[in-house]
């Protein structure tokens, strides 16, 4: 039996684990002891992360659509076909008529190649990935405030913090191993403040639980800061020396006394004052947030409000003190770092900056487009307008994951040519003209960057399933056919190129990561040990900027016709669109069907019982789900997870976007509920 160290492919925690191999079969998993993230533990998904790898549903060979069904094809045939079609569309309608979707499930190397493929081979900046749907507001908001949009601290610092403020994150279920460190901190006497409309598992341990109405985070945070300013809890020295724009920010915040916020948020003014006092007075305060903050039309505002809070109290730039966005996918941090974004090259270097563009042009030996491309949601809109004619989607399932799913479906149907590269025949792949079989994390080398910026190595444990190939091999083979020479013998050569062009990754090379705990960027040279916490002494952009933000209600508020607020999210046992976890027996058995959480009082008034079926409808569509009556969810709010294609909640969600980050508002939409007989 061999044991291959690798990284868990589910959430952004980036837990270290071993895959156990017997005769080229994966027969088990065990956690890495003393790993800085998981410390010998794993969550249920980690313990069962191997079962889907050799599932018979895996794509075995490339597929070409003929009529309404697929036929088997050879690699040679499909790659030539794709190259020919892409080239033709590029000639006839221009490079910008092609959209590329990269993947937060793929390695850094693959995301880098995909972004290079889009920019150097196709010649477009139309590249994006699912970070648009989870943390684009973080990337935008924190870049404006601090100059760098990532978790400022490390996971293993959490246990020694004195105060944890968790807002909009169901940490124990969505980032279980970070939740574990939080419980450790609470055991050691830290104060835990949770702001979440739902009574999640972590909220049960909270000393103060703020159950604000969905979408009122700005009002809540502003009023907390209002109390701080009025009660003199501000760190004046820090504000003076290290930040700018305090005065205009102060003017805005003064409009949100706790009594006003109480009316907007539903949280008592007393609780707001309490939180302001403990957060400001405790040293070593860490603030955590996740989708509950970002997935709103005010996503960037919410993030800015969090950043303001951290700056106002000087809770940043020290160990165990900072602002920590918890990233969702295993490599969503890496995919952003690698520049799978329409306006940025790897390492957050701006496409619009001529000097930086010149650097990439010289390295890649081609002329690069200068205007930022389309974001993920915009690509689908453009497809409907026929501005985008072809798409290349790697490892994503937008038909299930994007808001207003039927709109996405229409958009993909209207394309001239769609290539989907995935491990399973996802719902998106079923619409494709060509499907390329990709290897999973267990079948390729590369690196993942977890939420705390830790770049970790994954290792091929077995041969790729059937004829499937690692994504980086597919992309480079396609580029070669399209006349751009991408010659990499192995992934470490790609990493060398990344290091060369990306200052924050300059010292990160595979040989430093092998059988090790990884390196946290920024890592400016090959002897640098990595950076456990950011903004020490100085913000990445120099002075931190206070961004005044005002409360804007959600795009859709309940009315007579649609009286309930629907909020969406994940469950502990499943992950995103379920391509992997729903093929894992233990996970599927634990949570086999879509359950809508509803408060007992609402259930009573609707005359529905636990496990009844109901029809949930919004302005955009309707689904049938089973009811789970629970006190977890407050009155007037229902919660539906988005894993289940048979009850695809994204048929209901509102595609209203944040004006700058273009993140859709998954967390609030108005719905109606009727019992089904």
């Amino acid at each position, binding site marked *: *039996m*061999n*044991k291959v*160290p690798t990284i868990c492919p589910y959430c952004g925690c980036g837990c*270290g684990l*071993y895959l*156990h191999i*017997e005769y080229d*079969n*994966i*027969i*088990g*998993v*065990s*956690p*890495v*002891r*003393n*790993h800085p993230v998981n410390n*010998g*533990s*794993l*969550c*249920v998904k*980690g*313990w069962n992360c*191997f*079962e889907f790898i050799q*599932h*018979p549903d895996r794509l075995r060979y490339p597929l070409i659509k003929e009529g309404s069904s697929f036929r088997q094809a050879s690699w040679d045939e499909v790659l030539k076909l794709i190259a020919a079609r892409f080239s033709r569309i590029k000639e006839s309608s221009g490079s910008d008529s092609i959209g590329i979707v990269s993947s937060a499930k793929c390695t850094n190397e693959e995301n880098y190649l995909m972004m290079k493929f889009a920019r150097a081979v196709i010649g477009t900046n139309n590249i994006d990935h699912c970070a648009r749907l989870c943390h684009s507001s973080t990337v935008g908001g924190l870049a404006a405030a601090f100059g760098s949009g990532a978790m400022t601290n490390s996971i293993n610092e959490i246990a020694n913090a004195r105060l944890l403020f968790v807002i909009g994150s169901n940490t*124990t279920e969505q980032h*279980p*191993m970070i*939740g*574990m460190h939080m*419980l*450790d901190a609470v*055991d050691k006497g830290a104060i835990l403040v949770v702001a979440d409309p739902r009574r999640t*598992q972590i909220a*049960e*341990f909270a000393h103060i639980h703020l159950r604000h109405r969905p979408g009122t985070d700005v009002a809540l945070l502003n009023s907390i800061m209002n109390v701080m300013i009025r009660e003199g809890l501000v760190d004046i020295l820090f504000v003076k020396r290290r930040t700018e724009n305090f005065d205009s920010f102060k003017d805005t915040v003064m409009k949100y006394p706790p009594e006003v916020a109480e009316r907007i948020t539903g949280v008592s003014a007393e609780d707001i004052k309490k939180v302001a006092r403990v957060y400001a007075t405790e040293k070593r305060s860490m603030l955590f947030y996740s989708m509950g903050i970002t997935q709103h039309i005010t996503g960037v505002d919410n993030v800015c409000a969090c950043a303001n809070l951290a700056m106002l109290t000087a809770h940043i730039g020290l160990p165990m003190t900072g602002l920590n966005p918890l990233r969702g996918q295993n490599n969503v941090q890496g995919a952003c770092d690698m520049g799978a974004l329409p306006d940025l090259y790897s390492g957050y270097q701006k496409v619009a900056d001529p000097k930086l563009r010149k650097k990439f042009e010289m390295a890649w030996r081609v002329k690069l487009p200068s205007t930022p491309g389309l974001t993920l949601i915009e690509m689908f809109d453009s497809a409907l307008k026929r501005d985008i004619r072809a798409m290349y989607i790697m490892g994503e399932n937008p038909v299930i994951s994007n808001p207003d799913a039927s709109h996405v479906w229409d958009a993909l149907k209207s394309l001239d040519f769609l290539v989907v590269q995935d491990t399973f025949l996802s719902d998106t792949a079923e619409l494709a003209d060509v499907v390329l079989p990709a290897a999973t994390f267990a079948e390729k080398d590369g690196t993942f960057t977890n939420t705390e910026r830790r770049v970790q190595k994954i290792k091929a444990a077995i041969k790729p399933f059937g004829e499937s190939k690692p994504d980086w091999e597919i992309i480079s083979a396609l580029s070669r056919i399209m006349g751009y020479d991408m010659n990499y013998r192995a992934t470490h050569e790609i990493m060398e190129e990344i290091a060369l062009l990306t200052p924050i990754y300059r010292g990160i090379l595979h040989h430093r990561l*092998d*059988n*090790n*705990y990884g390196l946290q960027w920024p890592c400016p040279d090959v002897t640098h040990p990595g950076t456990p916490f950011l903004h020490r002494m100085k913000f990445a952009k120099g002075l931190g900027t206070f961004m005044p933000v005002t409360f804007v209600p959600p795009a859709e508020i309940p009315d007579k016709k649609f009286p309930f607020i629907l909020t969406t999210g994940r469950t*502990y046992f499943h992950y995103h669109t379920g391509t992997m976890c729903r093929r894992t*027996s*233990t996970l599927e*058995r*634990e949570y*086999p069907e879509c359950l809508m959480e509803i408060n007992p009082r609402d259930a009573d008034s609707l005359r529905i019982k636990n*496990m009844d079926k109901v029809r949930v409808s919004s302005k955009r569509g309707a689904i049938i789900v089973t009811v789970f009556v629970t006190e977890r969810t407050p009155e007037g709010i229902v919660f539906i997870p988005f894993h289940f294609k048979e009850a695809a909640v994204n048929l209901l969600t509102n595609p209203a976007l944040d004006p700058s980050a273009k993140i859709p508002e998954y967390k609030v939409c108005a719905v109606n509920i009727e019992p089904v007989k």
Partner: protein
Amino acid sequence: MRNSLVLDKNYLSYWLRQIRQKMSLIAPIRVGNLGVVLKTVENIHEIELNCPASIPSVKEFLFPQKEDMFRFSEGTVDILRNDTKRLIFGVRSCDISAIALLDRFFGENFVDDYYMSRRENTIFISIVCNNPEPTCFCLGLGTGPFLKSNFDIQLTDIGDRYIVETYSKKGLDLIKDYYYLFSKPKKSDYETQYEILLSSQASFEKRINLENARQKILIERISDPFWDWIGRRCFECGGCVYECPLCTCFNVLDRVKSEGSGTRFRIWDACMFKGFTKIAGNIWPAEKKGTRIKQWYFHKLLYYPDHFGKFGCVGCGRCTITCPGHIDMATIVYKIDIGDRRRR
């Protein structure tokens, strides 16, 4: 019969290399900075002799997390069974004690052929723990740090040499052909060994008394709110069950390759999951986390002693390492023992 010999440490790799010609060799190997794991040895010099006691248990070598049982095709069955001859080197006493119990469990009444096939072809060389970890508590259970019986071969590190004890015939067979490598122990060797055993026993940090907890459960009838309180901290990861060298529950599933043919396999399952006891027709008998946790502890503390005369715990402390909520055997037993019923 227990039989003692002495092996110069310099001869160990030669001996193992000779044995490896006959069977595959599994031993603790260091994986860079990540720690030590048990895996098939490629280079004998890589074997980590000073490995921590807490590396994952050997259970998976006898009862893997996922094991194919048979292939089926058009109703004909092709039984899959692993009968590779293996030597597992560097195992600890707690694991050997656990295997003795697993042998009884899988071997009684209905014989589990898959376990037995692997078991009969596996020999263990265990090492006396002279450096128990802070999480270990085998001492109070008599399952370690050294064994007096029921092992194949047991090594005690006495500085530059090992005292090599054999107990089973399998163990004796491994030594028989290589007597020239071994010598008779001197009286001073026995004395050194005795001192090492004493110092090992003295270095345990945890003293956990399972019998006290058992009595408390039987007499005081620990109430359900206690278990619900514990359940709040449960992450439902199943880690305690997966890591436990004595947990044996599994699920059986079919994986279809093409119409009518495929593989039936079994995969570790855990009573910590609410779907574990689910009955068709949407009946979930153990919906509360507390109920499931209680079942696990009752199994180990009450039912095991009733059935096997021994606790279903060997004190390896792996649940302590792996439990993200810190509601492991040592913690809970301690809480029950001292009567800690705090609500937070």
